[in-house]
């Protein structure tokens, strides 16, 4: 009698386990081969640990991404590849981003070479219109705390010298070097100016603005001060 009950029960368990494994593998395929939680690295302390931790967290977010999020990322990649800052999709396709979509865009930011100032700034711009969580504000602080980019050719090196007579050609380079950070500040300014902004986000934004006034970049310090002055004087 027992065998007649046990064998079907065992069979049910085996089939259920196989079904679960099948569903999990299909999910990973849809997300384009995102790392599974099994491949997440063990916890390591220090900067490497936090970077790896971010990577594991972002991979976890990718696995939560739905087809709409992947479509959003694809559109972003298309726009960046086209080098067309006036693509109207910049204004239409990146509203109400999901946490997973934001995580993927933050990944994009971190994977761009530092010298990709416009690409990085564009990510900040799009995320800066979707400041709804503490994690969003943490990213802005991460961008602001980066060391200054010292030259357009190589952020780690000072620009090579040229003739003094060509100094008039130096137009806007300082803005470009600090572009992602400048866009952080413009995003914060817009947050204050937007009706219905979350009071918690506004409090976090005030802290970020104050920190920006201590930036190593003159442009960032000056802009932070100017924005703070404008907001406090109600201009």
């Amino acid at each position, binding site marked *: 009698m027992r065998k007649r009950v046990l064998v079907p029960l065992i069979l049910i368990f085996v089939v259920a386990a196989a079904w679960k494994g099948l569903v999990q593998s299909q999910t990973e395929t849809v997300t384009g081969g995102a790392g599974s939680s099994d491949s997440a690295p063990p916890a390591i302390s220090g900067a490497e640990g936090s970077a790896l931790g971010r990577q594991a967290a972002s991979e976890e977010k990718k696995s939560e991404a739905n087809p709409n999020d992947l479509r959003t990322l694809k559109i972003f990649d298309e726009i960046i590849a086209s*080098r*067309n*800052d*006036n*693509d*109207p999709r*910049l*204004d239409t396709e990146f509203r109400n981003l999901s946490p997973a979509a934001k995580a993927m865009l933050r990944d994009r930011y971190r994977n761009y070479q530092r*010298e*990709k*100032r*416009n*690409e990085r*700034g*564009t990510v900040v*711009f799009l995320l*800066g*219109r979707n400041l709804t969580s503490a994690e969003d504000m943490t990213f802005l602080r991460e961008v602001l705390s980066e060391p200054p980019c010292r*030259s*357009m*050719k190589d952020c780690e090196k*000072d*620009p*090579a*010298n*040229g*003739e*003094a*007579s*060509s*100094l*008039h*050609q*130096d*137009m*806007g*380079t*300082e*803005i*470009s*070097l600090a*572009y992602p950070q*400048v*866009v952080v500040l*413009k*995003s914060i*300014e*817009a947050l204050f*100016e*937007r009706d219905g902004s979350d009071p918690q986000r506004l409090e976090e934004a005030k802290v970020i603005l104050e920190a920006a006034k201590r930036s190593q970049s*003159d442009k960032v310090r*000056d802009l932070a*001060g100017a924005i703070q002055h404008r907001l406090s004087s109600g*201009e």
Partner: protein
Amino acid sequence: MKSISLPILILSLAIPATASAYTFDKDVPQATRDQITQDLAFLETFQGKQSTPFHQKVFGGKTIDGKAYVKFFTDRVSAVGMDDCGNPNAVACVITGIFSDSSKIWLTNNYIKFSHPQVAKMSVVFHEARHTEDANSNWPHANCPTPFLDAQGKDMVSIWTGARLEGQAACDKTPFGSYGMSVILLKNIEKNCDNCTAKVKMDAGLYGDDQFKRMTDKKAIADMTKDLYTVKKKNNQI
């Protein structure tokens, strides 16, 4: 006579409108040609129902019309070549002098390598295009004052060299020189372009404000402030 004039008329109509457009030197890489062509096409799409008086004076018409921007460029620039412009950080330049073709704009390799926002890069190209105007003595720059201080009272320095800009030919006293014209262009894009993305408008404002700091004549500053800065932006519309 009629039998001769009609074919001539037909022939003249058949000459493409781009006959007066700029040419590329042979050494301009295809990627650079493609990029500047695309960047001009980017500007050509801009539309806006109004523009400021200074914008009307420089670019004509009463609206923002991208075709007028491209005409401004093609009316002045006959050719595009490659040069290092005497500075490893430069994006573009015009070389004037009796042995130079001042209607030619020179691009550096940085034009496609350096990651500036698109409207910022185009403002540099237009700044240089202004320098092609022989009839206006190529709009030479004014020497920056000594001392030349920013709003915080610190010396204005070149980010390229760390050198102070005081005494250097890197300022303008007239609103219609190369810096002033770029500010007029950028601030009008920011304020009045109806089909520009919020990013383009934000970038135009950022770089326009930055270049305004090179204006050093009080009257020019006052006139440009009245033309470009008197109407408060409602919000950033980001």
